[in-house]
């Protein structure tokens, strides 16, 4: 049997902290598993003091192990205290599920910024994922950007569990608050026609106000470019190719490449240099995100 997320976290934390600090954590996990809430709440708050909050600094092999333990799980940015907090939450008994949810609610209600980040990043590891949909939606509603990113970025939960409306709102909010789309898991799989139309409206709103638009926006429009608002999207992409900044031109090429319509292929044929550069991966959505 392959390792569980708890196994992975436990191994990584034990490798990163002194033996006595890890023993403290093991003790708290055991008390938590025994259903004692007071030591759980206290330990959850104390982890940073007891274990420090340095980065876990996981290797490529570690990250592969994470993805095997839980598909789509990417703890590349996790810190030691975050991992330890997740271990504590994963130790909570779930037999009395209503009580379990109440304990979690209380934890969220009193959480500080770092704790909120840890809790939202832990969502995909929790049992009964459906039970946390409202919680995830609340995380998306937050005004704290780091907390929002804890839900939206490197987190398989939204693409797996959010309905189309909530998912679309999350993507729009990423653009609205100026965070990248590329770290969102399941981005291309969950592109949809409604989202493409919403984002096109958003793009025109921004243009009307003389504001910049992230070139990443066109990634979500590309597959639906032909049908979005009667070809308006296709016109915009064509215009970006002619008049846009370099990153926008790259984005337009990649968007057109993701579009099955003949019209898109015809436009690409008019730009053979760009098209072959895209083919050779001279630029990708990730490189555009990194540069924008």
């Amino acid at each position, binding site marked *: 049997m392959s390792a569980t997320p708890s196994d992975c976290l436990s191994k990584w934390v034990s490798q990163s902290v002194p033996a006595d600090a890890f023993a403290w954590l093991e003790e708290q996990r055991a008390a938590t598993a025994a259903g004692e809430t007071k030591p759980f709440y*206290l330990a959850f708050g104390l982890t940073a003091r007891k274990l420090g909050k*340095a*980065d876990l600094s996981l290797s490529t092999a570690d990250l592969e192990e994470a993805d095997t333990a839980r598909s789509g799980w990417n703890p590349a940015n996790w810190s030691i205290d975050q991992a330890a907090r997740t271990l504590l939450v994963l130790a909570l008994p779930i037999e009395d599920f209503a009580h379990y949810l109440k304990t979690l609610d209380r934890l969220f*209600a009193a959480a*500080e*910024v770092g*704790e909120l980040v840890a809790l939202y990043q832990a969502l995909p590891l929790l049992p009964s994922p459906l039970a946390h949909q409202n919680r995830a939606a609340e995380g998306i509603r937050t005004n704290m*950007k780091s907390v*929002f990113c804890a839900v939206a970025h490197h987190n398989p939960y939204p693409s797996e569990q959010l309905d189309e409306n909530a998912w679309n709102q999350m993507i729009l909010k990423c653009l609205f608050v100026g965070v990248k789309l590329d770290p969102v898991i399941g981005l291309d799989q969950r592109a949809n026609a409604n989202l493409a139309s919403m984002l096109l409206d958003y793009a025109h709103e921004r243009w009307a106000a003389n504001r910049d638009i992230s070139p990443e926006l066109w990634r979500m429009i590309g597959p639906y470019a032909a049908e979005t608002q009667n070809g308006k999207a296709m016109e915009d992409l064509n215009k970006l190719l002619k008049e846009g900044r370099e990153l926008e031109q790259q984005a337009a090429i990649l968007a057109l490449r993701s579009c099955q319509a003949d019209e898109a292929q015809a436009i690409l044929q008019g730009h053979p240099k760009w098209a072959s550069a895209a083919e050779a991966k001279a630029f990708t959505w990730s490189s555009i995100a990194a540069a924008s």
Partner: protein
Amino acid sequence: MHIIDPHTHMSARTTDDYEAMAAAGVVAVIEPAFWLGQPRTSVGTFQDYYASLVGWERFRAAQFGIRHYCTIGLNSKEANNEPLAEEVLEILPLFLAKEGVVAVGEIGFDDMTATEEKMFRAQLELAKEVELPVMVHTPHRNKKQGTLRSMEICEEHGLPPHMVVIDHNNEETVQSVLDRGFWAAFTIYPKTKMGNERMVEVVRNFGSERIIVDSSADWGVSDPLAVPKTARLMLERGIAQEDVELTCYQNALSAYGQSGQFNESDWLNPAAIDQRNLFEGNSVLRGQTPRVDEPNESEIIT
């Protein structure tokens, strides 16, 4: 020069204030839990208030490059509703171990009632249990008696004076506070507490050891720039740079640093995870660059 304002109620202030404070050299603030100008009526509003001190407000400050810390406690003004006060005491442990909580406070006396004393004592015991310093609010009325009584009670509970900051001092109380080994904080608050010209003379007369300057800026007529303005006035009026640094930065760091939650490296060399969580993004500014004005108001606070 770096400045710490170790007593300021930022929840009641605007983003303009944060911008001006950052421009004036404020690198860190401590927001003591206090009342909201009128008493709360349920434990839930206390809980949400404490949560905002360790959550949203901390994040909001970070948008301006200021590190935000807080103290958690049941203030004296709201201690007199005994059934509610008991409920609040029960939820305090949930927050005292949070990151960025540097003391139990502000606690102490307002009307000097028996219930206030009971809640004060209970929280002193809590502070000992969680090994945090204490921020003591001294009353506006009957200040001298209230200050003495507060110190006696701290001593009765065996709190070492170096773990206790007695706040809102004046010329009449400072000597007794220093004599007994406590930290003596002064609030530069227009009209009702200290003016900064008086503060200059306090430092001239009593020195800089264990003396701390703060603004207690809140929802009343108050000045979020009181500490930087006082620092500047001290320098102008011939107080040595070293004394200014002690009273407007280092002493607060030493006193509240005893919590283990308040370290210079937090703002000079923040951990990678803090940089990601607390120094990135700017949802408050919504993409605008902070406006930095030269302070042009009068530097004298009367």
